[in-house]
């Protein structure tokens, strides 16, 4: 590079070392920095790289001229070899064959203020050359310098490419991770947060934020949410308000933007340029991704930054749509189950709302014993459908007011297996089958249908068994009156280790039944209304 500063020219430094072994002292000429020795440690440097020599070179060589002689004879025994490195900016001082022998050298050294004998002693090792040898050497040295410079340039290119490559790798990793997370629709809030965080790390943004508006099709985890990853120079509340009002403006003009400080409130708050891209859902703007506060050498947004923010906004749009559809489907699925189980329970006024209450109690108990969200959800579904097999039991048996005969009881005992058989063909129900099949097993092994005992009974079955029995005892049935709360809980505790898993009864009696009691009241009212309606008809 023609403009490389003399202080930083690694190729020249390496070349200088080689020249020492040839007995050459290097000077460098730069249009604005002037003439300077490359180093001061060459043999004979106190003279050949000294100030007196600089004055002499400046006087004798027309440095600014493009037509410098390749080899200038400064004196009978001292030559300035102008290296052909494409710039004529490096001068090698080399001694002639007779250096130190004639009067010229002694006079020169004395005139420069050195004792000729001591200079000669120091320069004893320095090679001396004929003019012909210097011509050949000049060519070789020039080639060498050019090669070293080219090598440096190539190294720089390799470094640049390595940087770009590692950056591209980070970009690809980010996009790959986004692709993978796309399928995880259970927790859209966490996923969005994590994508913002990854974008921030990959591109050296100070912060990345996402703002969603209230939208009827949005999922609760994203609806109206504001997410910020990183540090903001302003208060988070001020930023939140600014991004909400920005999102409203985007309803009119839904293009990507680059906000500049001094031109937009949000950029002023952030104290930096802000890249923003709207998030679209079915053609509507439902949110916006914002990124700013770039750190590093170049604090301005690059084309790579805008491209990634754009990619992430469109990814979040698709993700938002998928999450909303997933949410809608799940609601519809559960809604259908609720309708089916409610219809079933409604066949008998005494069991009205039973499945819904058992499902609710199961989630409470699951939460109390520390199961995760996914298991709680499965238990809820399992509770909703646990009695679906009663479809296959004659109504005369189900609604019978007196004591059941053994034959009738055998029919009742079939309902877990019937329910299991109905549901086992539905792919989404695989995880809840245990609860349906085993909710009448007993801890002591005297239950049905398989007479399993202890921990051989799947957990869902053990949980539903407690909840099912509790609800049955707490409500009036065709064959008996409801028992009081105290009495029911005592009975549950009494049956720990015989009918119930003893690890579950303690947590169960500790539950808060207030919402359960509201459910009971609601279900009774609707049963009474229906009873009155059918009497009137």
């Amino acid at each position, binding site marked *: 590079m023609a403009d490389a500063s003399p202080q930083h020219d690694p190729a020249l430094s390496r070349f200088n070392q080689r020249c020492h072994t040839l007995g050459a002292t290097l000077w460098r000429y730069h249009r604005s920095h002037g003439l300077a020795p490359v180093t001061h440690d060459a043999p004979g440097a106190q003279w050949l790289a000294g100030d007196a020599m600089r004055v002499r070179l400046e006087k004798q060589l027309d440095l600014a001229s493009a037509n410098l002689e390749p080899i200038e004879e400064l004196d009978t025994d001292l030559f300035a070899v102008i290296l052909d490195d494409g710039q004529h900016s490096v001068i090698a001082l080399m001694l002639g064959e007779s250096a130190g022998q004639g009067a010229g050298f002694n006079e020169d050294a004395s005139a420069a203020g050195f004792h000729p004998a001591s200079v000669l002693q120091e320069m004893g090792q320095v090679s001396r050359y004929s003019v012909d040898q210097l011509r050949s050497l000049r060519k070789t040295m020039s080639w060498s310098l050019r090669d070293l410079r080219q090598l440096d340039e190539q190294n720089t290119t390799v470094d640049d490419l390595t940087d770009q490559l590692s950056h591209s790798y980070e970009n690809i990793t980010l996009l790959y991770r986004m692709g993978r997370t796309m399928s995880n629709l259970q927790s859209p809030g966490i996923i969005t947060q994590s994508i913002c965080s990854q974008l921030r790390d990959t591109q050296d943004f100070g912060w990345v934020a996402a703002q969603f508006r209230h939208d009827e099709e949005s999922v609760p985890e994203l609806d109206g949410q504001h997410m910020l990853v990183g540090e903001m120079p302003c208060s988070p509340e001020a930023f939140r308000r600014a991004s909400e009002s920005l999102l409203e403006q985007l309803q009119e003009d839904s*293009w990507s933007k*680059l906000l500049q400080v001094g031109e937009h409130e949000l950029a002023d708050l952030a104290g930096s340029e802000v890249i923003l891209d709207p998030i679209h859902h079915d053609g509507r703007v439902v949110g916006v991704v914002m990124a700013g506060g770039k750190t590093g050498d170049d604090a*301005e947004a690059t084309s790579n930054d*805008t491209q990634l923010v754009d990619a992430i906004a469109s990814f979040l749009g698709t993700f938002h749509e998928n999450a909303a559809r997933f949410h809608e489907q799940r609601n519809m699925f559960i809604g259908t189950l609720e309708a089916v189980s409610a219809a079933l329970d409604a066949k008998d006024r005494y069991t009205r709302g039973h499945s819904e209450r058992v499902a609710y109690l199961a989630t409470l108990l699951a939460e109390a014993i520390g199961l995760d969200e996914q298991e709680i959800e499965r238990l809820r579904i399992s509770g909703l459908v646990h009695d679906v097999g009663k479809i296959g039991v004659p109504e005369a048996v189900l609604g019978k007011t007196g004591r059941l005969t053994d034959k009738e009881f055998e029919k009742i005992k079939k309902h877990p297996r019937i329910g299991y058989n109905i549901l086992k063909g539905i792919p989404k129900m695989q995880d809840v089958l245990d609860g349906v099949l085993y909710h009448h097993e007993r801890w002591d092994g005297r239950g049905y249908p398989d007479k399993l005992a202890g921990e051989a009974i799947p957990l869902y079955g053990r949980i539903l068994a407690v909840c099912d029995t509790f609800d049955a005892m707490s409500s009036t049935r065709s064959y008996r009156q409801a028992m009081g709360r105290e009495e029911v809980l005592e009975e549950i505790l009494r049956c720990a280790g015989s009918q119930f898993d003893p690890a579950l009864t303690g947590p169960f009696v500790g539950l808060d039944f207030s919402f359960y009691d509201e459910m009971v009241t609601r279900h009774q009212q609707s049963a009474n209304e229906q009873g009155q309606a059918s009497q009137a008809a």
Partner: protein
Amino acid sequence: MKAHPGPITLLIADDEPHIRLLVGAKLRAAGFNVVVASNGQEALEQARTSRPALIVTDFQMPLLSGFEMCQRLYEDPDTSEIRAIMLTARGHKLRPSELAKTNIQLLMDKPFSPRDLLMHVYDMLGMNPEAKSA
């Protein structure tokens, strides 16, 4: 305060919206009048009507590539003077013999820093960025 370098018009041709956004914002912020095109054909027509001082164009674009667009402008005596900076992904290096058929003065690799691009624009227009803010 931003100085206004007069009514200097620049054309940005790129099919990627984020590039038009970024380059457009930077050049407008520097006081230039910016027109945009999202494909080569549109850029060709825009260049003929707007007569920009300089074109910043992508290489690969729908309908007509940035290279063909520059080639056609160069072949037409009316527009042969319009110079261009071409943004290319690495690996789309053009040979000097190809560049000679156009008025493309500079190739820049994508991704790029808009600051570098602005410096090159000033340079090609013979403007001094330091004096600009005076």
